[in-house]
């Protein structure tokens, strides 16, 4: 359990999550983050002077605005003296931002913090080759035109091919999808089960969109050349998809024997999400009714060369232990769906005594009850802007805990580098 002051989740909002290359493709990540933060300030009617710090997560930062959080804290709605930093814990970045903020509040270093994350995978830096970069640096330093021309003279056509960052593990060279494929095979997760998870994700997200539970956390995006094209919901959700349609899709990472498809994986996504955190007494003093409180959190990691996305198998029991509660006490669970194969692998690991032994745990964590898990779908349908997902999960969970009057809730996130992250929320 976090020791110190109790930390309240007052509110959270996010932009619509949009598949990369669609409606948000021309919007730099920094503008998405600023927009979400600004609207959170207006929706909560909070005085900008109350904000003590801004913490944001971003996984693929722009080289032009490496500290996106500072650009958020320089919104004119805030005083200019609000410190801010941007962190990277891969797909758990926003969750990390939220718990870092919670630590500061618990310690009494801050009362009110804006925390969240952002990603624009339409706006990733494309790099020059190393050789060409070197030429540019030399040319820039050259004092004479001759020297400059000499530098450019060394350029070969192949040097001009740009390099884009891959979603691959530097330590293994394995891509995220390849890892998911490997896990599906090693853990014996059939294609049909993966597709069922994907179908459930879409159907539940569609229901949450239709009844407004999911859209209530979205601040509408006004886009298009005339700013009159309004997006109020996530554009990756397919209400009409079916097991048959999902079954049609070809595996991406192992065309012959694979089971991981575009349909049962989360798509590349643009979006931002921000949460307003406060010390409990501060929230009460300002007249806010907290949605939930942060009870505990934990990070863990496994060898990336083993089962890359198995981190949650360790992080969740750790967080529950710190929370001092058991799995069966959880009224709601939000599992980040990077891949259906990963979700089902995590679920398998939590439930099985054999896995507990493999992981060195005293016993299995618990059996997932799908009626209480990902009740409004997950990242497969809603989308997954790497840096923002953690804040979406916290917002969605906290809102639903309030609606259902649930005492304990959990979020579980797998992240690059074999990492896992878990947060336990409580209502009262």
């Amino acid at each position, binding site marked *: 359990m976090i020791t110190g002051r109790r930390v309240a989740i007052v509110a959270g909002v996010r932009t619509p999550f949009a598949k990369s290359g669609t409606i948000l493709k021309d919007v730099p990540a920094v503008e998405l983050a600023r927009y979400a933060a600004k609207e959170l300030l207006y929706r909560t009617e909070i005085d900008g002077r109350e904000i003590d710090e801004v913490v944001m997560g971003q996984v693929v930062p722009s080289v032009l605005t490496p500290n996106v959080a500072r650009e958020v804290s320089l919104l004119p709605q805030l005083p200019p003296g609000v410190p801010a930093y941007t962190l990277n814990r891969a797909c758990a970045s926003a969750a990390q931002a939220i718990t870092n903020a919670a630590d500061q509040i618990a310690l009494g270093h801050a009362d009110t913090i804006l925390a969240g994350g952002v990603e624009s995978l339409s706006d990733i830096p494309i790099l020059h080759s190393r050789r060409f970069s070197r030429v540019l640096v030399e040319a820039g330093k050259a004092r004479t035109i001759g020297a400059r021309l000499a530098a450019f003279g060394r350029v070969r056509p192949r040097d001009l091919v740009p390099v884009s960052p891959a979603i691959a593990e530097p330590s293994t060279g394995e891509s995220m999808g390849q890892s998911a494929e490997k896990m599906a095979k090693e853990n014996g997760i059939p294609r049909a089960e993966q597709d069922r998870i994907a179908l459930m994700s879409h159907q539940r997200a569609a229901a949450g969109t239709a009844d407004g539970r999911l859209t209530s956390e979205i601040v509408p995006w006004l886009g*298009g050349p005339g700013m009159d094209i309004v997006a109020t919901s996530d554009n990756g959700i397919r209400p009409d998809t079916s097991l048959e349609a999902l079954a049609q899709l070809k595996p991406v990472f192992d065309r012959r024997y694979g089971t991981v498809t575009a349909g049962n994986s989360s798509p590349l996504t643009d979006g931002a999400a921000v949460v307003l955190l406060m010390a409990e007494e501060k929230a009460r003093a300002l007249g806010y009714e907290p949605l939930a409180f942060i009870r505990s959190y934990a990070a863990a990691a496994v060898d990336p060369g083993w089962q890359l996305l198995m981190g949650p198998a360790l992080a969740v029991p750790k967080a529950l232990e710190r929370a001092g509660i058991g799995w069966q006490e959880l009224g709601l669970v939000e599992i980040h769906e990077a891949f259906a194969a990963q979700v089902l692998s995590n679920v398998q690991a939590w439930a099985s005594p054999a896995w507990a032994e493999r992981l060195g745990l005293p016993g299995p964590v618990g059996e997932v009850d799908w009626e209480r898990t990902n009740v409004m779908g997950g990242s497969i349908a809603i989308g997954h802007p790497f840096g923002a997902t953690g804040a979406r999960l916290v917002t969605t969970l906290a809102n639903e805990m309030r609606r259902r009057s649930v005492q304990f809730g959990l979020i579980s996130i797998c992240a690059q580098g074999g990492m896992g992250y878990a947060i336990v929320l409580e209502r009262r």
Partner: protein
Amino acid sequence: MTAFTTTVDSGLALVTLDLPGEPVNKLTSGLIDEWETLIERLRGDSAVRAVVLVSGKPDSFIAGADIEEFTRLTTAAEAEALSRRGQDLMDRVEQFPKPIVAAIHGACLGGGCELALACHWRVATDSPKTQIGLPEVQLGLLPGAGGCVRLPRLIGARAALDIILAGKTERAQKALKLGLVDEVVPQSILRQVALAAADRLAREGTARRHRSRGAAGALLDGTPVGRRIVYRMAQKQLLKKTGGHYPAPLAALEAVRIGLEHGPAEGFRAERERFGALAVTPVSRNLVRIFFATTALKKDDGVPPGTEVEPLAIGRVGIVGSGFMGAAIAGTAVLNAEVEARLKDAELPRVGKGLKAALGILDERLKRRRLPAPRHRRLAALLSGTADYSGFTRADLVIEAVFEDLDVKRRVLAEVEREIRPEAIFATNTSTIPIRDIAAGAARPERVIGMHFFSPVERMPLLEIIPSDATDARTVVSAVRFGRAMGKTVIVVRDHPGFWVNRILSPYLNEAGVMIEEGVPVDLIDRTMTRWGFPVGPVALMDEVGLDVAQKASKVMHAAFGERLAPPAAIGRMIEDGRLGRKNARGFYAYHEGHKTGVDERVYRILGVKPLEGFAAEDVERRLVYLMLNEAAMACGEGVVRSARDGDVGAIFGIGFPPFRGGPLRLIDELTAGSVVETLTRLQEAHGARFAPAPALEAMASRGGRFHPD
């Protein structure tokens, strides 16, 4: 008086100018005396090698001559003598045997600029507050202390004429590019750099400047033939621009020409003679008065003097209605007042469109480089939009800019009152509806006020602020100050139908319609009034405003004032034909791709009239002008404006009443009320009761009074 303090260090005299009791430095006669004494002392002081002149005021070097003194000049000879004193002073600076360096931060205008020009080196700060220029022609004058001679010699004929003839001011970077200043530095090192320059000049002798103007520049500025082309083009442009109403720019052009072609001595003579002549022209008198009136309005909070209220600091504005007006109010508020502006409309796509339009105001500044990119980004982030009232709880001011309809406005007021804090102000942007009617059902009528913006908001300088009887003083002061922060000239007017501007406009526009029905050609009407000095004629103005909007306003006026302000049938028939003016590219004029292409001749057939020949422009002019003068007198008599000053400023900035005529009330004073009554009586006999002289005017005529005390 001790305006100057001098400290000498290592042979460098740092002279600080700080005019006692004034917020800015200006060149008064007393200051000139003091400067002359000082400079003689410095001449004889062997310990002084060079001089740096710097201002002790926060953001003004020297803002110009003391214009108060100009108003006391009664003859051209007196004015010429004043000019000569200025010239002599500048001459003494220029001829001073030791180098003098001007260290410029803040306004360096008019006489202040001329003094800087006479110095041997000019260092300016890069602050946006640093403005250098010669705005004299805007007051119907010309630079009379050597500026007409020195500036063209320093920066070339074309660049100098560009500044002098338009009365322009330039920022430091542009001034550096032009050669108007020699160095631009951050404010923190201004003195240091100026002292170093003084030291260098003292050791090395004369200042060296070299600047290439390019081949075309060398030909145009550097040869008599080239300059002749420059003069001719400038003259042609000026005649077109001033319509022959403003003598000052032409006189300045002459002074510049003589100075360049016949040498400085002749130039100075031409300059002071023309300054003398211009200073006593009615045009200059009126322009100076308007300058004083607007200056006075900048300090006028719209409540009786001595009213003690703590105005609400306005940092967040909610705007309801994201149409054309609402969006422009938001954009202008953000741009000039730097406040948060949150647009609310019923539908998000409308909100988005409004935000786009508001951003457009910022984008346009960015494109014209009036707004640096980082500042643009900051200001753009002050804009936001919503389809609910989120973000309104902490608003200080909510401006309603919805459809001009009493019920709609009342409903919005009721909605907004539920959302905002009790201290917050609700302003209604209406052009005709009485504020008391809108505020009738308000929970807090003391916080309700009218703010009548003119379209396009980002360009129109006037704002009418209308308290109802229930509005409290704090609300008035807060709204007036906010209007000023938005960059507007604010007049506080009485809560009476049409307020001031639309009131005096109403009979004038009606009469234009009546004339068209009589068969007066549209272009004759408009041409006559633009020749009289209006920027657009009344018919073209109706097209700009929108015929539907004009009709709506005229109906309100008709209902309030009866037959006298009955609208002509012409407008109604135009609307029936689907003609709304420029907005749908169909009006009295035809439009092609947004450009007016001329009178749409089909209009006469629609109205069932034949345009006739033989109408005299004088008759057209008399009918239109006198109706406006009469209405102005009547409304002023009813206390619609608090003073004749406000009335004239409102007419000039609200409808483009020719500034050189001083405003409608000033014009009555100049014509005399008796003569205006007489003309109106004759017009009444010829054209009907709507020309009946206003009671206030008759009363004034009978006692020989004036609207303006001076």
